[in-house]
Each structure stands twice: as C-alpha cells, then as structure tokens.
C-alpha cells in the first residue's frame, strides 16, 4: 500500500513525505505517470499560485493521468492547501485558470470583514467540522490546524464542505466528495491533529 505525493515543482513536498514517514506509511515523492497509476492513493500538496500549479501539472503531462486515476478509477486523493484549490473548477488568481473540477467551486481571494484580519491568513486556527467521516472522526473539539493562504475554496454546494474556518468571514477548511478530499490547512505542519488526519486518510485508502 503506497501513497504518491505528487511533485509538480511547487511548495515544500518534503514535509508531507516526512509526516508520512513518521507514521510508517509507505510513500513516494514523484512526478512519474506510471507511478501515479501504480499507487493506491494520491496526495496533491502545493503552496503558491493556482496558475503556476496547473501550468506545471499540464507541462509535466500529469493532468490526464490524475484525471483518469481520480475520476475513472476512483483513486482517493487528498489535496493540501493549493492542492485543495486545484480540485475546484478554477480560480481567478492573476487571471482566470481552469482546475480539475473534481469538486464544484472556485478559488477566490480572501476578503476579510476588517483590516485586523490579515491576508495572507497565516497561523493556527480552529475549525468547525460538519462531516466527520472519514478525516475528522473522533477528534477533540475545535482542533487547531496551521493555515497559510491568501485564496480560499468557494464551494458551489455547502454540502461538499466537511469543515469550516473563520477569518473575518467563513470559508471552507475542508471539502470532500466520494474519493476526493481537500484541506486548506497543512496537516503535515499541524502537529498531532494534522498527523492524525493523514493517518485517517491512509485508513480510507486502505479501506478502498
């Protein structure tokens, strides 16, 4: 049972690998199409700009393979931070860009209600969980996770949002449909609460 961490040249993918290693989960950091087909689960990490992310994914020939593995073969995927936003239909960050469209929605810039809510939203914030299974079951009340982002996932259907966060306005901290999961925060940098979420994602992969 192996998880592939998709390396498309954006952000600190090493820390996701370190977190999985600490859990004794077999993982491979890769941009190889065949490996993405061979593994049982995918993690799409990433920090940075939406357009650059999608461009890199297309340039590396990964778009079709991810689409096929997730849509046709129903392989579990967890998008983290930018990786979550790439699951959406698109983004208006620095001009319009198209995403994977796994979960209906759009990545938009945070526009908090007051100046005291700074953008980027950086730091530990608590979330309100609305769907517990499978990523948030038996967690302590309003756990804190580490966020760092200027854009958020505006889900078309609120029922796809599994957790909410508030930063001068409510936004999706996590989304999910079937085998597709996205978290805006960084589980790999959220200490125990985050590591436990990665473990639960792995549990879901195993159960498939």
């Amino acid at each position: 049972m192996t998880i592939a961490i998709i390396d498309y040249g954006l952000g600190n993918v090493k820390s996701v690998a370190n977190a999985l290693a600490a859990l004794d989960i077999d993982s491979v950091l890769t941009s190889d199409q065949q490996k993405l087909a061979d593994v049982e689960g995918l993690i799409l990490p990433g920090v940075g700009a939406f357009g650059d992310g999608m461009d890199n994914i297309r340039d590396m020939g990964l778009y079709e393979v991810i689409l096929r593995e997730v849509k046709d073969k129903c392989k579990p995927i967890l998008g983290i931070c930018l990786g979550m936003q790439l699951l959406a239909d698109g983004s208006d960050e620095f001009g319009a860009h198209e995403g994977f469209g796994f979960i209906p929605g759009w990545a938009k810039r945070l526009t908090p209600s007051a100046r005291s809510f700074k953008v980027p939203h950086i730091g530990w914030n608590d979330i309100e969980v609305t769907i517990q299974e499978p990523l948030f079951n038996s967690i302590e009340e309003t756990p804190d996770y580490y966020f760092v982002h200027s854009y958020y996932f505006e889900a078309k259907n609120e029922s796809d949002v599994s957790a909410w966060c508030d930063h001068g306005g409510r936004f999706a901290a996590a989304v999910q449909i079937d085998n597709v999961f996205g978290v805006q925060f960084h589980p790999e940098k959220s200490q125990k609460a985050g590591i436990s979420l990665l473990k639960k994602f792995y549990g879901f992969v195993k159960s498939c």
Partner: protein
Amino acid sequence: MLKNRVIAVIILRYGEVVQSVQFKHTNVIHTDPAYAVNCFSKWNADEIVLLDVSRDRERREIFLQSVEKLSKTCFVPLAVGGWIKTTDDIKEVLSLGADKVIINSEAVRQPDFIEKVAKRFGSQCIVAGIDYRRNSAKEPTVFIDRGRENTGINVKSWAKEVEKRGAGEIFLSSIDNDGMRCGFDIELMKDVSDEVSIPVIAFGGALTANHLAQCLEETGVDAVSAANMFHYSENSMRKMKRTLKQKGLNIRF
C-alpha cells in the same frame, strides 16, 4: 479564531545551539540542535525558527545537515534564516524541509531580491528579517550583517517597504534587547504592527510569560518569539503557554 503564535528560535553557530546576547554568541547550549527541536516540537511550539549566525560560510554544510535532520521530526512550520543570499540558497533549504526563509541583509543589498523571490516561491515563503538598534536619539535603525552594519534606514519605513516588495511576514528583532531579559521593545513592536498589514513576529528580550503576554496584549503583533528562555527549563514552552492561556490570551494549547 486565528491564534497568536508562540515561536521558539534556535540560534546555531557552526551547527551548535548558542545563546545570544545583543547578537554576541558566546555560550554553547547544546551541541546537538535536534535535541532542542524535539523538545520544542513535543512541548507544543507553534513554529520553529532556525538561524545560522556563523561568521562565514565555511561550515555551512553542518547547518544544512541540521535543517534536514530537524525537518524530519518537526511537524510545525520551520523557518530558516542566515546566509540566504540567492534563489539557489532558498531552493536548497526548502528542499531540505524548511517551509519559509528569513531574508535580512540581502533585502537591503539587493533591492529587487524580495520581489523576485516572493514571485518565485510565493509571499508565504518569504519572511523579511529586520534587525535594529535604537541610536542615541532613540530612533530605531535597521542593521544588517548580523548586527554589524548600520544602514541608517528607519525601521518603520523599511517594514512598509518590505511589505510592498512582497514579504509575507516580518521577523522583527531588537538587537538592544536581545538576551537582556528586559522584555520586548513594546513601543516599536506596536509601531511596526500598526504600520503594516502582514503578520509581525516580535523577537528580542523575552524571559518570562509576562513578557510574552505584555507584547501580545499591547502591540498587535501576531506572534512572539524567544530563544534563550526556552532552553533552560524542562517543558518551558508548555508552561509558558498555559500561563498565557490563563491570562485569557488567544493561544493554541
């Protein structure tokens, strides 16, 4: 609600953890930085900052090995500073597991550096380090090269400038207060925090939970950080955070 962060700073000279007093580093605290990181991570630090204060690059390799080793067990954000002069320096520490870099001297020396690397790696990855001293007229002035070169630049206007250039956070460090156990420079922390809209991390002078609390209560900074105070007592971070929590501060505990 977004929490105020309590950040542990680890100062490394040629790979050893050292104590810092007004940017002079005489005492070695630990020879193995992994020990310190393990403790801080276990004790619930919200973030860890690793600074390389070595005088030259000769033994940079030792520092880089520390970054790699530490990142393996550090499941909170890790920021790395010192000797970050080129895009390749940033790529190198990120590939070893750092999440952010702190850029200080080079931001002054190469006017387009912050802008260039913020575009390349994203603002979230670029922390502008500002070290300063107050001159005889008490005006805060930016220093670079580990506190050795006075640039004559005013701290508030420089903070505004690095924000404009694309820095995602400011690590604001008082050389005068560093290691003096007198608490933070409250007045300037407040001034800078009021001036910019990006998060400010206060550093320099904290010894007690009251110092941390005062800075969070009175200045509007997003994060407080300290180095020496966390090294000398068992479980210090957790105890400190408990006290802050009891004072009603918005802390992850």
